[in-house]
């Protein structure tokens, strides 16, 4: 059976280009221009999926983005497997492989369908009520089982091999939607000279016009409009592009799909491009979505929206059935009935829900001899994998039966409950919505951005009016864009909205003469929410629509209730006997339709996920086998293992080399700020806790920077390189924070100071030489610098050269050894490093990494910001009280130090900890307890901040912050460890060379 349901003469598909595709392993033929849904229907396949909760057989309800049921997975290869696609939006290509979801073992025989029979057990809120016992059962047992049984497609496990892209764009007028109103808006705006962008989610522009019979007079208008838009140089047309999010200040996110429709995408071709468009003005022409009707058994395959049937027939050349029952609450259904009748479909009955049906289309249907009756409701339907019959009954206004129950055999049921304007984006923009009685829907009211709505998304349904509406919106948007108007457009005039009756439709559940136990009338197809669930929520006392939505999950599926929200509101309004406008509306959120993670990520994956900052010496470290660690965005060499050394062995060797000879270390990542100006010293005095006036040119000082609340923010060596110039260093991660804080004070509190800041972090590479031999290594390489102890004491700085390259040489130490830090302009650093390393060979020079650096400084009790400090430590807490000036009247943080709590005796203070087992290395972060064996809730009195094995001391060492720690030196405390409590002795935090003799080599 090949395309038995293909119309011979209708449609916009290309009959000369047949395409093969498969669905659940079975091969079919379709045509170029088909969607997967239309191609399946052409082959008589209506069963396309199983429902989320009850596993009910489902067909296709709609023809576009709003489709809630026909969700499929499309597979290109193991890694290219996309779940949860709407079959109505999947463009057919040759070889397309699609699979149904949420069924086992097969779509037509699904074991999970037993949940349909057990459905009395799964009412709304059943999760909350049923799975309460035993404790822990939810995570271990219930949730995994429920997730396995209910749900959508599976996510691929492989890395996504496709490329994704980002692009920013700017325009005067962005038009969302390429239907008649959108095209008219874009044309009008372009004609006024505006820079225009127009996007549409479909492959072709035209919107609702594509569902008109080909050869319709609108065809010419469509072709002409597209042609003249293409001719405008300042117009960008984006098809297959969904505007999925509306963000503040007219930033609209678009997702453009570039390859999913292609049979053979090029290797490396961009799959999706995420656009962020900043538009001066926006015109929303997003159309309207037809509402289903709510009656028992309204979800069987073969039941679809009337407009969807028109679209399948007129656009895709598919005759979706042979004998149809049409249920109308809106005149649009009659058009569908007439066109299907003309295409050879027998119309068993047009049952109108309304009391009257005397518009143009109903009259035309009657003239065509189609059976029409008013006052109709649907009692139920029959058929398992496809509808077989519908049972209708006429009810008078008092809900009394008129005549007998009718049973109409059919394989197709069309319904039209009217049209719901697509106000998603207007609502996302925080614009107000207003209930419109004539439209029987919410339409855009006062805008909260520079945005207008045009056409059926604001209830202007007739084609001529929608085109006029679009043109007006486009023209005024272009005018406002040119005038750079910042005001929001006034609430639009709603006089163009649909006239009473013809289009208004119906919201809620169709009336039933009596309760029909066991039947299900679906409100939300995708989340399997029925009228019974909503009724239960109301019975249980939920009255807010937001609560009802969450309790029943109505409108919370991936389609966000495009076909269900208004019916849910209508139902609640019927039951509460309140107008829909009073029931209110739930919030619309982005994305309008699901967007791939790839599109959000764009370029930001793999190596480009974040900037990877490397120093000028990085190459050398790579060549010498360094293992790197991430510090802020930097890659830093952590250690340089040799001959299969592990971390421990490498660090021990590196530490011994520094203490015994000379180590070389890349400290280039240190933040550096040049503070220059005649008020430089005044500024330093106000910023830092230290005193700076007495610091002579050519000397350095360890600086402590506090926040205004008195806690330590950062530290670093500061050199005075001229009367009016300081070279300030910061921690690696703290550089931007410190510079921003300094700029803040300078610009906002002390604008009178004549001083300026410039970051030189990346101007200078820093090569640290530490160890008793460091002077010997350097002395023959430097020019114009006297490295002798007399000329260059500890904490001094000199300008000169090294290997012919200008250099700033510091005598500083973060290891407790004699040490120098050579600053050279970055481009020279690699060559200078290599030259020093070569010259150092005779002195046992050893490259060491950040791990050895950490151990060496911990042996000396030097703190690391962010390790010993955590934003609640004062300088005194971490043993830096000596650095805080007692004489300066003010500096940042000083006033806060006078608060009583800042000098409380039980503050946590920096101490050393020694375990009785010298091989046992404590865990960093472990809690320090007064005694062992305490039961919860035990109160810790401190925590371990740094803990290492010290090769120098040949034992473990640890730093800790302990309450009243300095007065506890000598005490035995206890550290909680995973292996049991560990007794520790409190010591001074300086484990090595407490007199500091080694600083002089």
């Amino acid at each position, binding site marked *: 059976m090949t395309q038995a349901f293909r119309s011979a003469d209708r449609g916009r598909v290309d009959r000369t280009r047949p395409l093969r595709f498969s669905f659940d392993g079975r091969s079919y033929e379709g045509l170029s221009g088909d969607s997967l849904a239309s191609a399946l229907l052409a082959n008589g396949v209506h069963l396309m999926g199983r429902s989320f909760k009850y596993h009910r057989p489902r067909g296709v309800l709609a023809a576009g983005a709003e489709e809630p049921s026909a969700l499929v997975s499309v597979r290109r290869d193991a890694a290219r497997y996309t779940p949860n696609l709407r079959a109505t939006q999947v463009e057919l290509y040759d070889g397309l492989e699609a699979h149904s979801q949420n069924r086992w073992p097969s779509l037509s025989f699904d074991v999970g369908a037993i949940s349909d029979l057990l459905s009395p057990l799964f009412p709304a809120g059943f999760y909350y009520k049923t799975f309460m016992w035993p404790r822990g059962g939810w995570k271990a047992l219930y949730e995994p089982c429920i997730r396995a049984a209910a749900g959508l497609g599976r996510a691929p496990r492989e890395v996504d091999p496709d*490329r994704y*892209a*980002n*692009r*920013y*764009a*700017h325009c005067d007028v962005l038009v969302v939607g390429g239907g008649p109103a959108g095209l008219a808006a874009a044309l009008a705006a372009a004609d006024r000279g505006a*820079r225009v962008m127009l996007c549409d989610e479909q492959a072709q522009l035209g919107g609702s016009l594509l569902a008109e019979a080909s050869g319709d007079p609108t065809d010419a208008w469509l072709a002409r409009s597209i042609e003249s838009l293409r001719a405008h140089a300042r117009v960008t047309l984006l098809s297959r592009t969904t505007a999925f999010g509306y963000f503040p200040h007219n930033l609209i996110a678009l997702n453009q799909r*570039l390859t999913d429709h292609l049979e053979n995408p*090029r290797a*490396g*071709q*961009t799959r999706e*491009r995420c656009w*962020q468009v*900043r538009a001066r003005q926006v015109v929303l022409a997003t159309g309207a979505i037809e509402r289903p009707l709510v009656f028992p058994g309204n979800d069987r395959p073969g039941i679809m929206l009337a407009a969807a049937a028109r679209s399948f027939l007129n656009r895709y050349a598919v005759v979706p059935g042979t004998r149809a029952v049409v249920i109308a609450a809106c005149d649009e259904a009659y058009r569908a009935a007439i066109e299907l009748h003309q295409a050879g479909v027998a119309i068993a009955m047009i049952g109108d829900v309304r009391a009257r049906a005397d518009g143009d289309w109903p009259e035309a249907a009657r003239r065509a001899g189609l059976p029409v009756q008013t006052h109709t409701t649907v009692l139920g339907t029959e058929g398992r994998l496809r509808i077989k019959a519908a049972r209708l009954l006429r009810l008078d206004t008092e809900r009394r039966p008129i005549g007998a129950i009718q049973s109409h055999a059919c394989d197709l049921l069309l319904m039209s409950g009217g049209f719901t304007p697509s106000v998603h984006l207007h609502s996302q923009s925080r614009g107000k919505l207003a209930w419109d009685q004539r439209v029987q829907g919410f339409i855009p009211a006062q805008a909260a951005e520079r945005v207008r709505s045009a056409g059926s998304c604001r209830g202007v349904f007739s084609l001529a009016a929608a085109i006029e509406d679009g043109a007006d919106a486009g023209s005024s948007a272009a005018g406002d864009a040119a005038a750079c108007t910042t005001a929001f457009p006034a609430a639009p005039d709603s006089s163009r909205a649909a006239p009473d009756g013809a289009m208004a439709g119906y919201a809620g559940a169709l009336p039933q003469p009596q309760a029909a136990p066991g039947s299900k009338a679906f409100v939300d197809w995708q989340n399997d929410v029925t009228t019974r669930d909503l009724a239960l929520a109301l019975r249980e006392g939920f009255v807010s629509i937001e609560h009802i939505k969450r309790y029943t999950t109505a409108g919370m599926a991936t389609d966000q209730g495009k076909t269900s929200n208004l019916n849910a509101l209508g139902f609640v309004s019927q039951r509460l006997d309140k107008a829909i406008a009073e029931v209110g509306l739930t919030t619309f959120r982005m994305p309008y339709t699901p967007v791939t993670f790839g599109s959000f990520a764009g*370029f*930001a994956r793999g*190596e*480009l996920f*974040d*900037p*990877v*900052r*490397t*120093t*000028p010496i990085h*190459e050398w470290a790579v060549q010498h086998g360094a293992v790197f660690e991430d510090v802020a965005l*930097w890659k830093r060499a952590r250690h340089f293992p040799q001959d299969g050394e592990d971390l421990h062995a490498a660090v021990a060797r590196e530490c011994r080399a520094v203490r015994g000879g000379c180590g070389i270390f890349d400290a280039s990542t240190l933040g550096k700020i*040049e503070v*220059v*100006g*005649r*008020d430089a010293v005044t500024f330093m005095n106000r910023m830092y806790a230290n005193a700076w006036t007495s610091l002579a040119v050519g000397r350095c000082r360890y600086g402590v920077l506090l926040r205004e609340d008195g806690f330590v923010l950062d530290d670093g060596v500061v050199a005075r390189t001229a009367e009016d110039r300081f070279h300030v260093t910061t921690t690696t991660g703290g550089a931007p924070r410190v510079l921003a804080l300094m700029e803040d004070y300078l610009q906002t509190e002390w604008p009178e100071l*004549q*001083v*300026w*800041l*410039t*970051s*030189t*972090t*990346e*101007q*200078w590479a820093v090569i640290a030489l530490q160890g008793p031999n460091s002077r010997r290594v350097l002395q*023959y*390489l430097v*020019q114009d610098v006297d490295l002798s102890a007399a000329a260059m004491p500890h904490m001094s700085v000199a300008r000169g050269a090294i*290997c*012919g*390259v200008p250099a700033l040489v510091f005598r500083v130490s973060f290891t407790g050894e004699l040490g120098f830090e050579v600053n050279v*302009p*970055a*481009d*020279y*650093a*690699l*060559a*200078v490093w290599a*030259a020093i390393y070569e010259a150092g060979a005779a002195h046992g020079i050893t490259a060491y990494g950040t791990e050895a650096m950490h151990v060496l400084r911990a042996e000396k009790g030097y703190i690391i910001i962010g390790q010993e400090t955590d934003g609640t430590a004062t300088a005194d807490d971490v043993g830096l009280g000596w650095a805080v000036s007692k004489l300066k009247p003010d500096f940042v943080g000083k006033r806060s130090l006078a608060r009583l709590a800042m000098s409380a005796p039980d503050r946590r203070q920096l101490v050393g900890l020694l375990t009785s087992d010298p091989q046992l290395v404590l865990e960093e972060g472990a809690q320090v307890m007064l005694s062992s064996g305490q039961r919860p809730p035990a109160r810790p009195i401190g925590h371990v901040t740094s803990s290492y094995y010290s090769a120098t001391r040949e034992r473990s060492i640890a730093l800790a912050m302990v309450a009243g720690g300095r007065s506890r030196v000598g005490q035995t405390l206890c550290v909680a460890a995973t292996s049991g409590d560990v007794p520790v002795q409190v010591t001074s935090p300086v484990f090595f060379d407490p007199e500091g003799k080694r600083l002089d080599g």
Partner: protein
Amino acid sequence: MVDLSALRRPPIIAASPMLRLQPPAARHILRAAPAVLEAAGEALGLSLSMPVCRASIAATRAALWLGPDERLLLGEASSAIETARRLQQALQQQPHSLVDVSHRQVAFAITGPQAATVLAAGCPLDLDPGAFPVGMCTRTVLAKAEIVLWRRADDGFHLEVWRSFAAYVSGVLAEAARDLADT
């Protein structure tokens, strides 16, 4: 004694058809009040009192407005010492800050009819010539990195970026160029 002064090593970057790493240059950040900037401009022979977000050029020198009190001075690599000498002389007692940042950042030229579109992959500014005309310059962002962007021609941009971000920025622009091939 080894002399390495000829041995400069620029950062490693990703190759891309529209992107060229520029040769080393002399770069200074000059910060001062408007009157002092004006005097400094006279000493260098180009205006430092340009409008907001604009560059001025004279012979081999250029000055870019980065902030109300901040200019980026660009010149040939060999001119660094001369620039500093001239400014020190001219500004002797006038409060200012002059800092050599020649090695802090590198420059790329991005050229071709698609230059603005490539940049739009990561730069959120409107790069239409009407909104970002030739001669405009500003600090901004490219994806997750800070850059200085200067339009030198309708289809040519000069981009300055801190050294350690050069690999990232060139990588993003290479990806963007690849995406353009699919437009």
